[in-house]
């Protein structure tokens, strides 16, 4: 499995293999993420798409090993710059968090601590990872605020989160993520809580910075359109598994898995659907809850093209001959 070659520039930045995250409860164990594998190269932007409950956020948090109790990584490995993070202790994880790997949370209103100034929250991150004087840390923080286009950063440093608008706060969160020049940024629905025009500004900023700094970006979102604009590759998740993964262009324009097809067709901006009526193509039914995932392919009860095998065996991800994407479907050739 693991290559014997030492980590080099060519080695992937992040390699997730057979990740399984489970939440043991008193009666039974919920498996929220099953057998998820993907790689992310240096400077690459990967999208993780799925509906609520698909396990995409948990996958993102498990890379930093920040799954809330009682959840735990029950199987698999997470190789970051060639080093497996799964067996690491909290003590060993801390130097990585916020330094090599930064995270951007969903709701900028909830992410920043309301009783601490922006400056404090930026400087503490730098001081946790760098040997700097307070003065130097402050200067560096101001510089970063300027880089995310916050006007008069010196003045803003001493203000509290409630004095900023939602878009501004998300810029600050991005600035905090950039402070230590990480090699990987995990962004969990960074624009979902924002308005369309602000969302566009934040996406532009993320894209600009990712290109400029050459960081790897793992973008977790439910919005296929956002993913299609920002990422190089995309992985689609359904009921805890990756059902399709490949270059964004290919997945968006020639989806192979019936779920991806349905999801794309259901978007109001696609002009698919029943012609003439203005109706949208729809996927019937709802995503199964983690309590009772159906046997075989989890999508088969909703799938329009299911065959007998779908309800019996879980399809593995396999390459599709025309597009080069991988899809977990019995029907993919």
């Amino acid at each position: 499995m693991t290559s014997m070659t030492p980590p080099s520039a060519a080695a992937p930045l992040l390699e997730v293999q057979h990740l399984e995250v489970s939440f043991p409860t008193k009666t039974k164990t919920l498996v929220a993420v099953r057998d998820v594998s993907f790689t992310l190269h240096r400077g690459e932007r990967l999208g993780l798409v799925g509906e609520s409950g698909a396990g995409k956020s948990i996958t993102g948090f498990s890379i930093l090993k920040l799954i809330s109790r009682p959840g735990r990584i029950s199987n698999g490995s997470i190789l970051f710059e060639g080093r497996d993070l799964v067996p690491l202790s909290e003590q060993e994880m801390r130097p990585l968090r916020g330094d090599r790997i930064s995270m951007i949370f969903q709701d900028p209103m909830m992410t920043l601590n309301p009783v601490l100034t922006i400056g404090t929250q930026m400087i503490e991150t730098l001081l946790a990872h760098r040997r700097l004087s307070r003065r130097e840390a402050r200067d560096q923080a101001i510089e970063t605020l300027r880089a995310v286009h916050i006007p008069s950063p010196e003045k803003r440093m001493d203000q509290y989160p409630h004095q900023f608008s939602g878009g501004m706060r998300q810029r600050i969160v991005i600035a905090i993520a950039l402070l230590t020049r990480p090699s990987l940024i995990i962004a969990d629905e960074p624009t979902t809580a924002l308005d369309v025009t602000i969302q566009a500004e934040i996406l532009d900023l993320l894209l600009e910075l990712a290109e400029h700094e050459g960081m790897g970006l793992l973008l977790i979102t439910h919005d296929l359109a956002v993913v299609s604009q920002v990422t190089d590759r995309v992985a689609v998740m359904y009921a805890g598994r990756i059902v399709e993964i490949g270059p964004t262009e290919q997945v968006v324009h020639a989806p192979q898995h019936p779920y991806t097809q349905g999801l794309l067709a259901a978007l109001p901006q696609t002009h698919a659907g029943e012609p003439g009526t203005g109706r949208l193509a729809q996927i019937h039914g709802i995503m199964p809850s983690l309590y009772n995932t159906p046997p075989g392919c989890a999508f088969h009860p909703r799938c329009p093209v299911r065959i007998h095998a779908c309800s019996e065996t879980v399809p593995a991800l396999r390459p599709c001959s025309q597009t080069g994407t991988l899809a977990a479907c019995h029907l993919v050739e």
Partner: protein
Amino acid sequence: MIAFLIRRLLQACIVMGVISLIGFSLRHTVGDPVREMYGMSVSAEVRAEARERLGLNDPIIVQYFRFLKNAVQGDLGNSLFYQKPALEVILSKAPATLELVFTSALLITLLSVPCGIYSAIHPRRLLSRIILGVSTVGVSVPVFFTALMCISLFSITLGWLPSFGRGELTPLFGGAWETGFLTWSGIKHLIMPSFALTSIMLPLFIRLVRAEMMEVLQMDYVKYARAKGLSERRIYWVHAFRNTLLPVITVGGVQLGILIAFTILTETVFNWKGLGGMFKEAVDRGDTSLLVAYMVVVGALFVVVNTVVDVIYGMVNPMVRVVGRK
């Protein structure tokens, strides 16, 4: 911030107004000023004449304003039993109670914060379970029963601690304040009463701190602080604790005020010569003026404590400090 301060002060005045109104009506319904002056055995004519002279036949509103005016000048009427101004009686008894309450409040603050935070951070550890278990038992034992158990164990059975009184006292400020803090005997006398008083409030505070801390630990910004790679100590004491403090201060202020009420029970058991014991005797003797004066003074104390607490809250909470709004 100044606006916030002024707002709090005005609110305090309104509350004091309400309290004075209650005190006034209490005096009117329960008390009888004529009896307070002359006792029961006087003729009807003398009574009628006294009523007229005391202005008891004036319109209620006039009487209320007279009461208010006197109260502001520090005249809360004369105590029937002591035959002295009620305020004077109260001031002479206050140091004993304040020392007791202060000791308990200190104990509560010093113990509840570490216990509450520890059991919030490690909810599954044995020590947390013990803390919680003990505090559940603690709220279920009436304060006077705790006091009785203490006496029967430490005074009667073991003979370690004195069971009543304040012990040797040292006069301060020219005798205006007699303190028990300065002598060994005074401190020995203080141990059991303050423990009994602490026992009722400490569990509530531990639970409050724990519940608030647990809620804060669920917040996104705590998870985010972890994701930034901060040390556990910084996450708990800078990020989580500051936010825990806000609700604890608000509720805590009110609860510390309630301690004063519980001194009635503690002081009765330990024969502690303070306000609580005085209040009990005043009820027994039907000393209405003293009762009303006690209510007004204690009410004023609550209002002062609450206002101070609010101001502290305002200083901790940047929302108030910067914008002046909650």
